[in-house]
């Protein structure tokens, strides 16, 4: 493990000491700060730049039981041509799908800059044996995905088995090979801000390349105070170890306004280094259309309408 961070692997006591030793969160101060930053007004050229950046950070997602190869291929076409009327619209970062659809997405997006991310490890509940979770991950990796979105075992985390969660993340990380690993904390189930801070550090220390808020199946999903905490964690993690890691809010971000509020938080809390699709993503589906509509409003004037963008 890199400098500054004690060696936590295989030693549950030092892991426990480290996570309990993290400074407690001041919820009132955290929420007030998040609310203040959310009021910042971004206009004109800055807004257009923010919209373009946000589009390039979208992980275009479909995680439904009703997903079919046709639907996934359609979503991939949408990712390749987000706005047919304006070819210079930036492309989203990735398409995010279930592991059994990974091959379809990889084939549809071959040769493009759009990456393929697959959820794995018995998403969204994560309630299965480690063998099944590893097999799930290998299924996606063997299809050739660039990124894996795993869920942590919240039951184990909440009952204090932090070493188990740490160990599972490490095993999945190993199974990922070259693929980047996003660790979904499902913050809506973690009950307290202190738990979210601990889970963030646990995931980072265990080797997650990204920490991600939610599966999108649990409410509340991504909220601004939670994103603030996670951004603080990656910033402090870099200060401690020198390694930069990413953050991905997912679920509930539907409007351009929400997306820009998140970007303000990224710039203010983590720093401008994270204002890059390599380090920050939005897990979303309907957000892309709203960004495209707002982009048109900015460049062409007049409020844009949902009848004028493609349905995904």
């Amino acid at each position, binding site marked *: 493990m890199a400098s500054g961070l004690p060696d936590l692997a295989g030693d549950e006591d030092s892991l426990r000491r480290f996570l309990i030793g993290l400074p407690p969160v001041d919820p009132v101060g955290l929420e007030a700060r998040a609310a203040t930053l959310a009021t910042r007004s971004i206009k004109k050229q800055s807004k257009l730049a923010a919209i373009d950046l946000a589009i390039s950070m979208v992980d275009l997602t479909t995680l439904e039981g009703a997903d079919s190869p046709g639907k996934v291929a359609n979503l991939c076409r949408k990712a390749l041509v987000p706005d047919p009327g304006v070819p210079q619209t930036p492309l989203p970062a990735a398409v995010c799908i279930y592991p059994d659809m990974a091959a379809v997405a990889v084939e549809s997006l071959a040769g493009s800059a759009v990456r393929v991310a697959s959820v794995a490890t018995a998403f969204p509940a994560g309630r299965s044996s480690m063998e099944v979770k590893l097999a799930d991950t290998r299924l996606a990796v063997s299809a050739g995905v660039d990124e894996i979105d795993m869920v942590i075992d919240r039951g184990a985390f909440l009952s204090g088995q932090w070493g188990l969660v740490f160990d599972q993340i490490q095993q999945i990380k190993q199974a990922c090979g070259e693929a980047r690993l996003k660790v979904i904390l499902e913050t809506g189930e973690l009950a307290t801000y202190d738990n979210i801070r601990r889970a963030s550090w646990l995931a980072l220390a265990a080797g997650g390349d990204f920490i991600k808020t939610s599966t999108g199946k649990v409410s509340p999903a991504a909220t601004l105070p939670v994103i603030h905490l996670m951004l603080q964690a990656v910033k402090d993690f870099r200060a401690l170890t020198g390694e930069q890691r990413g953050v991905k809010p997912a679920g509930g971000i539907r409007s351009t306004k929400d997306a820009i509020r998140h970007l303000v938080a990224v710039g203010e809390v983590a720093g401008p280094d994270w204002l890059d699709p390599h380090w920050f993503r939005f897990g979303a589906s309907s957000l892309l259309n709203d960004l495209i509509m707002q982009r048109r409003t900015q460049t062409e004037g*007049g*409020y844009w309408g*949902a009848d004028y963008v493609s349905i995904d």
Partner: protein
Amino acid sequence: MARTPVRKTYKLYLGGAFPRSESGRTYAVTDASGAFMANAACASRKDLRDAVVAAGKARVGWAGATPYNRGQVLYRIAEMVEARRAEFIDLIKRESGAGAREAGAETDQVVDRLVHYAGWTDKLASVMGHANAVSGPYFCYSAPEPTGVVGVLAPESLLGLVSCVAPVLAGGNTCVVVTPQACSTITFAEALATSDVPGGVVNLLTGDLAELSPHLAAHRDVNALDLTGADPELRTELGRSAAETVKRVYIPRHEPDFTAAPGMARLRAFLEVKTVWHPTGAVSLAGNGGY
């Protein structure tokens, strides 16, 4: 001891709620003699945008309600206005300087107009729809469907406003109404809010027509415009802007006399005719035409 007067501030009616303007702006409403009446919210461009979003969300539910149900809701508005008759008469007297008799007559006409359109809702399909005789083995029929979100620039009188809004609702459309006349309009909104009109079906914005209307005309989620309340110069400009997004635009042919019988033009203006062709039994394998 003198009782402290309870002053009323007139707010916007947006998505079924009564919010202040997002901009925080207000304007003073004066009566016919120029004396102060009340402060009213002055809607901004963003309030208009929010109103269109609210109208868009309410669209499917209102268009999907049975015509019978829409008629009941319109009749309920009439009941609510009738119940507040004294309040409306007082406001019309102050706003227009009319006498008690004229103001009473206008209020009665408002109620009658609502009842008139309440009766229309379940007759539109049979009056405006047809079974079409076609030269082929098809059963072909046409039926009217609502246009969608209608932007209404309302004339100043309450009777004018109701005469514009009621036919839009009767056809199953939702609307965003812009009007400079705050007091009677927002009091009418209070009648709407207690009439089972789903939130967002009618949105009433008080403010400057010239400031708000260009944004309404250019908005791509607005499907039609009623320009009754705009002056001729503004009508031309807005019509041109609306053409960009192929909106339906309704401009009355003559200056409307709202006291006269309303006719069908306003109903027809915000309905689309859908024609459906069904193959009939004539093409069946039996080949005997069936009937």
